[in-house]
């Protein structure tokens, strides 16, 4: 190597220069697209959120914080925040807990468990819009299979359950058309679709937990399964949990397909499922109110970036409890 090193050192400055130029050449398409497709739009949204611009108009007026004012004063947008945060606050913890639970059960069963893994992962792969339409059929108030199944319980001992008794007397819920149920049904489908993804991430995390740790814990007196979980598994899964929670949050914030499929107009009964992505679509694209749409976009970006930054901060602190 020494023989090669001498001439290499001699032509080093030119070589370094050449390499730098090639490097910039290789990176430039990516850099250009990064600016054009990711950074410029953020700036554009930021600027437009202070205007009353709409597509097709030649000019626009600056309106200052009016758009943001509206977001925080109108009841429509209050419902938007309530719907979005309800969805995130319900879907994230439940889908993370179910994902963890499923992963622990599947993991403890060994090879047979793989069958469940495959099944639980199916909704992650399936086109959500298609599955949303299937759910809509199943939840149809009269011909849907869910209410038809519930009706089977009428006249049997199962009627002691108040929910079933009420349903048999006054008809079962309209589900998607009922303002008391709509958001919960939406959450249910979000969980149905997403928990398999979390399970797979947890399964990957579990393979990294060392067996010796369990033995050590047993020696130290951790007898019950719960003790072993609390003392070994859960702390070892810390980094996975941080990641799973963050990615679930970001995915939950972006819910759109199901809302648009169920309620193409207006975001559900009494706007109870008027989530942010749908609001951006409805205001910005369908109604051409770009200013208000951009303001929602900016808020959305702030939420998502905030979440990711928290995650990175936690990871850097090396979450090992």
């Amino acid at each position, binding site marked *: 190597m020494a023989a090669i090193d001498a001439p290499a050192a001699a032509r080093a400055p030119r070589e370094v220069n050449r390499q730098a130029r090639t490097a*910039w050449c290789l990176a430039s398409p990516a850099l250009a697209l990064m600016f054009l497709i990711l950074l410029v739009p953020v700036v554009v949204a930021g600027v437009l959120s202070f205007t009353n611009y709409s597509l097709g108009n030649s000019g626009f007026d600056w309106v200052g914080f009016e758009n943001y004012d509206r977001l925080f004063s109108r009841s429509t947008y209050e419902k938007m925040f309530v719907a979005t945060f309800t969805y995130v606050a319900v879907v994230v913890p439940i889908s993370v807990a179910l994902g963890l639970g499923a992963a622990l059960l599947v993991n403890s069963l060994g090879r047979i468990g793989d069958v469940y893994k495959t099944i639980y992962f*199916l909704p992650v792969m399936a086109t959500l819009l298609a599955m949303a339409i299937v759910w809509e059929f199943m939840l149809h108030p009269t011909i849907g299979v869910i209410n038809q199944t519930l009706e089977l319980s009428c006249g049997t001992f199962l009627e002691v359950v108040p929910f079933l008794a009420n349903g048999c007397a006054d008809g079962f819920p309209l589900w998607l058309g009922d303002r008391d149920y709509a958001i919960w049904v939406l959450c249910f489908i979000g969980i149905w679709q997403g928990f398999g993804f979390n399970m797979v991430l947890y399964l990957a995390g579990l393979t990294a937990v060392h067996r010796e740790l369990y033995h050590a814990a047993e020696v130290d007196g951790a007898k019950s399964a719960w003790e072993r979980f609390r003392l070994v598994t859960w702390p070892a899964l810390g980094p996975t949990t941080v990641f799973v929670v963050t990615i679930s949050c970001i995915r939950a914030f972006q819910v759109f397909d199901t809302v648009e499929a169920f309620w193409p107009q207006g975001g559900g009964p009494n706007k109870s499922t008027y989530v942010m992505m749908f609001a951006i679509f409805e205001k910005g694209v369908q109604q051409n109110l770009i200013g208000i749409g951009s303001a929602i976009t900016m808020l959305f970006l702030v939420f998502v970036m905030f979440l990711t930054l928290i995650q990175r901060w936690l990871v850097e602190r090396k979450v090992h409890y």
Partner: protein
Amino acid sequence: MTRDIWKHLILVIGAIIVLAPFYMMLSYSFKSPGEIDRGVGGFFGAQEMMVDPRCVKLRDPNRDEIAAAAPQYPGKSDSEIRAVIMAQAEIDCSMRPVVFNYSKAFIEAPLLRYLLNGVIVTVSIFFVQVLVALPAAYALAKLKFWGREAVFGLVLFCLLIPVHAIALPLYIMLAKVGLTNTYAALVVPWTISVFGIFLMRQFFMTVPDDLIDAARMDGMTEFAIVWRVMLPTAIPALLAFAIFSIVAHWNDYFWPRIVVTGSRELFTPPLGLREFKGDADGSFFGPMMATATIIVTPLIVAFLVAQRRFIEGITLSGMK
């Protein structure tokens, strides 16, 4: 052992809930409208011959057609001739429900076109992503240049921005340059995958420098090194990324919904299904479920065949 039974019990209940919509989708796609309405017929339905009312209606003869057919039926009145023709039409238009549902899926809407569009869009997105990300990842991983840290910092920052979140400004920009309702609009926002750059950079970091130095000794240009040395070593990572990218864009509904309006020519599979739903009346549940089945099937089958790869690819974002 008894503990395992409890575990199975819980997991089986979960599996039933997870599989229920898939079961119903398939089942509806086999059944006749009547069976769907009444909720009878088990999984496959009775598969009794049914008559397609639309098809019969189309064959209802008008005055001229009856006049034209008259020589074939000497001595019969017009209404008798019509009855004969309609009886023939009913025979021609009767079919098994499963055939009715799946043929309607392709006839009522240009489903083949939608599927083709889906393939075109997902494949072009993936190729452009690789074309853009791979050289950049190589430069960031293996070349020393002034500003490298800044570029990598930018990549890390851009990872914070989900493309769906900035859909509105992107849509405005595309509308301003007149690109809405084109294939370009469906592909352009996804051409840059910062995640792809990040992933490939991490992978290239593990490739030994000697390999690259040897290639340089052989007189290969840096450009050639990217495609002839780095690309082959990166095949496993690229495969995982391909699955990640293709699944995401085949299933994407939000972005196509924004930039494609009106023209069916450009519809991707989810958009096509959505439109089908929009103008479906009750009797079209079956064909619609057939459409849904056709759209969902390719990825599910691919997943069942190559499970481990798929799970790896989809959970890529979980790798550090």
